[in-house]
């Protein structure tokens, strides 16, 4: 059963080939047996999963099931889940049991989804390798010596290893797309404002966006249909109707204009990754697409701008973790200042502290204009690049990440090198555009992702473009050895 996609599983459930309880049990058994190798789950909610599976079976029987009813998925541990520990990969929240569901979680609940558990992640979503987690690194199912990418490394790994039918992730600078690429799965970061951020623990509020991670574009379409839509509890969510993302999956690509930004194929791109991406582009040409070289001249600003804006917002967002009301509190604080200093000093890991310090610095009196304000202006330039590009092309393509998955520990002592793993993904967050990563091949035994960037609210087109490629390739349906 675990080799099936969400779409196939839904069919099996509807046709009574198996029940949700059987399916859920099968996944729980796989998790029990295999998760030790990858460390992708922080919490497995077996009991609740079986309760939900029984309820889903009843719905299926009653004929009130939807396309996700009874499907076992995993949520990134950044989404608050009522009554279940929500750690955000941090010691700070190791003891935090959320008293409410994030909007994303409650929408999946309403759809009848079975939550198998919560996935491992970089601490507070800050990292590109899943090595900053308090719960230890996740390993890449394709090569256990390699990182899965981050920050949604656990969510990528559970799909790659088929320890869940699909998962949710969040993407602030590439945290869905980069691990999707490194783990050989399909991941979508929607337009900023499409999916509610309520209940998703904030890293950088103006960049954070939740999205689906799955085996295929079709599965992402099904997942996104449940996640998307206006939420009155999130002022940045947009009031617009949610299209049927599956409806246009089979549209032909003849005449599609694909833009290849020359800046995404320059220095720093691994030659093997470049070859895989070029082969995928060639495939698109066969499907009738037209390829146009374009320029996004401010691409070089993306990483520096991001490392001003994201830390600035995180330095403020993470102030609530002060040891006063919830989360980690140091032992025997002497006074208030001691409580603050030690709770935060002991509760946060080094990468989180580094970003809080950068953010505090760039917002400080006398530095604000030079850093934060300037970064906001540069951010506008980056958006403008895309605006011009989308006047010429329908979709932008390139590599998701400059290299395939690197080895555990390889970059963890060099933050700047680590930050450069998101060099191609960050710009979409800064501009608020939707982006996808789809499996396009391998370098050795490690997967390569092809990135698709679309215009605002053009998710349906991205999914269509991705789906058409997946009709003529099988990279997305391959399983790593040891997880077959």
């Amino acid at each position: 059963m675990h080799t099936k996609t969400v779409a196939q599983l839904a069919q099996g459930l509807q046709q009574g080939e198996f029940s949700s309880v059987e399916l859920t049990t099968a996944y729980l058994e796989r998790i029990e047996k295999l998760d030790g190798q990858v460390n992708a789950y922080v919490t497995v909610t077996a009991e609740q999963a079986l309760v939900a599976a029984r309820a889903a079976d009843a719905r299926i029987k009653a004929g009130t099931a939807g396309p996700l009813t009874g499907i076992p998925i995993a949520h990134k541990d950044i989404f608050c889940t009522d009554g279940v520990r929500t750690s955000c990969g941090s010691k700070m929240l190791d003891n935090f049991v959320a008293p409410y569901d994030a909007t994303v979680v409650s929408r999946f609940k309403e759809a009848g989804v079975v939550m198998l558990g919560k996935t491992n992640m970089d601490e507070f979503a800050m990292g590109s390798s899943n090595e900053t987690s308090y719960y230890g690194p996740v390993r890449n199912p394709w090569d256990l010596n390699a990182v899965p990418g981050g920050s949604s490394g656990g969510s990528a790994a559970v799909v790659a290893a088929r320890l869940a039918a699909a998962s949710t992730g969040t993407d602030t600078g590439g945290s869905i797309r980069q691990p999707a690429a490194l783990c050989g799965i399909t991941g979508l970061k929607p337009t900023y404002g499409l999916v509610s951020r309520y209940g998703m623990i904030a890293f950088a509020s103006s960049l954070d966006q939740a999205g689906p991670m799955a085996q295929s574009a079709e599965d992402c379409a099904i997942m996104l249909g449940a996640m998307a839509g206006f939420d009155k509890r999130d002022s940045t969510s947009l009031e617009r109707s949610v299209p049927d993302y599956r409806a246009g999956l089979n549209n032909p690509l003849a005449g599609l204009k694909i833009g290849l930004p020359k800046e995404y194929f320059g220095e720093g791109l691994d030659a093997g990754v470049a070859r895989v991406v070029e082969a995928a582009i060639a495939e698109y040409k066969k499907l009738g697409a037209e390829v146009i070289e374009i320029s996004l001249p401010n691409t070089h600003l993306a990483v520096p701008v991001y490392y001003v804006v994201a830390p600035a917002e995180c330095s403020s967002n993470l102030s609530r973790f002060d040891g006063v009301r919830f989360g980690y509190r140091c032992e025997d604080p002497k006074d208030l200042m001691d409580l603050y200093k030690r709770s935060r000093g002991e509760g946060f890991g080094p990468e989180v502290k580094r970003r809080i310090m950068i953010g505090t610095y760039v917002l400080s009196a006398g530095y604000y204009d030079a850093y934060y304000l300037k970064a906001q202006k540069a951010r506008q330039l980056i958006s403008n690049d895309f605006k011009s590009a989308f006047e010429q092309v329908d979709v932008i393509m390139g590599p998701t990440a400059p290299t395939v998955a690197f080895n555990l520990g390889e970059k963890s002592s060099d933050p700047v090198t680590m930050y450069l793993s998101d060099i191609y993904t960050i710009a979409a967050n800064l501009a608020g555009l939707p982006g996808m990563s789809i499996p396009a091949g391998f370098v050795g035994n490690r997967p390569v992702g092809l990135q698709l960037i679309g215009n605002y609210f053009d998710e349906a087109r991205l999914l269509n473009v991705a789906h058409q490629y997946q009709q003529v390739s099988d990279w997305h349906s391959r399983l790593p050895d040891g997880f077959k």
Partner: protein
Amino acid sequence: MQWEVVIGLEIHAQLATQSKIFSGAAIAYGAEPNTQACAVDLGLPGVLPVLNAEAVRMAVKFGLATGCEIGQRSIFARKNYFYPDLPKGYQISQHDLPIVGRGALEIELEDGSIKIVGITRAHLEEDAGKSLHEDFAGLTGIDLNRAGTPLLEIVSEPDMRSAKEAVAYMRKIHALVQYLEICDGNMQEGSFRCDANVSVRPKGQHAFGTRAEIKNLNSFRYIERAINFEVERQIDVIEGGGTIVQETRLYDPDKHETRSMRSKEEAFDYRYFPDPDLLPVVIEDSFIEAVRATLPELPAAKKQRFEQDYGLKGDEAAILTGSRELASYFETVVQASGGEAKLAANWVTSELLGALNRDGKELGDSPVSAEMLALMIKRIVDNTISGKIAKQVFAAMWAGEGDADTIIAAKGLKQVTDTGFIEKIIDEVLANSPTQVADYKAGKEKMLGYLVGQIMKASQGKANPAQVNQLLKQKL
């Protein structure tokens, strides 16, 4: 050396919305600690703020009433600092682009002259919770009921030159926000409070002196005393050869002094930046016009109308328009009494306000309603009772003995207009007062008053005074 005092005020008016500024939690005062704080107010991980449209409407109302500019695009910003009763580690406020911009307010000084005080801006922000240091034996309790309560911070220009002017300005804003029904004005509960920026400079000097900010003043008396204390302190320091340091000070009403809280060096760097969780507030002209249509008659216009329509004197009109509630009480009395504006003004300003003041009651708690007072006035006008007897009736109504008619009947206070009865009393009094009658006839006109008094006394105040006068003169 002659010193000039320079004062600017930052007034915090708690907006009278049903719920908090960024969450749906209620804001009633005095609830059990932490019973009016939802996930958003607690700053739980993952929660987001959603702006209360009513708070925006109220802020715009204030801006329109003071002729201030309305910020067509205003931005919420985060003011970052750590404190246990500040759950998110930042306060959502407005920094660069406030919702209300420049304007001005006229205040009347004690000598009757008019002064214009500039309003710099007014911005929306959320209140913090409360830290409770008592009852926890060495620990601090946190009550987050107040966290997220909407505040309008009204910042004045440094235009005031004495504590009295500051109080006059504060009173004016206090009356205005209540007129607009955007704040209950309750200073004891902290719904209306201010911080005062105070400095002194040699008279004639253009540049401002270094200022101290006195925090959290919540009564008109304290404001005046705190400012006066601070002014004297600053003058003493300067005249003693010292310099004023920019700092935040607290006023201690028990010791009647201000104390340093923190200096500029210790001041927080709040690291303001636009709150990415909230979109810019864009205010359309149509919204402004819709709010303008809901503006009530403002105090100045009402005072003028009272003078014109009711023929009231300036000071009477000023008293009666001091609060919207009192003005409305007065107008109800006028209407229900059949247009007896002068009598109504007299009775409201003297008897009613006197009784409220004496018993420490608010108008809302008055045992004598506007309708009751109107009925009593009608009874004066139709000669059922005299003005003097009316005081007795008012006292009885105040004591809860019923309406005027009930009291007049129960106590037999109905005025006597029966000429025969009055003449009989006059005859008795004249017979008993031969000396006074003789004096009167000898030219001592004052004796008439004495005789009237005696007659009224003998009638137990019930004789109609006009008739008594007339008949007495005839008989004499």
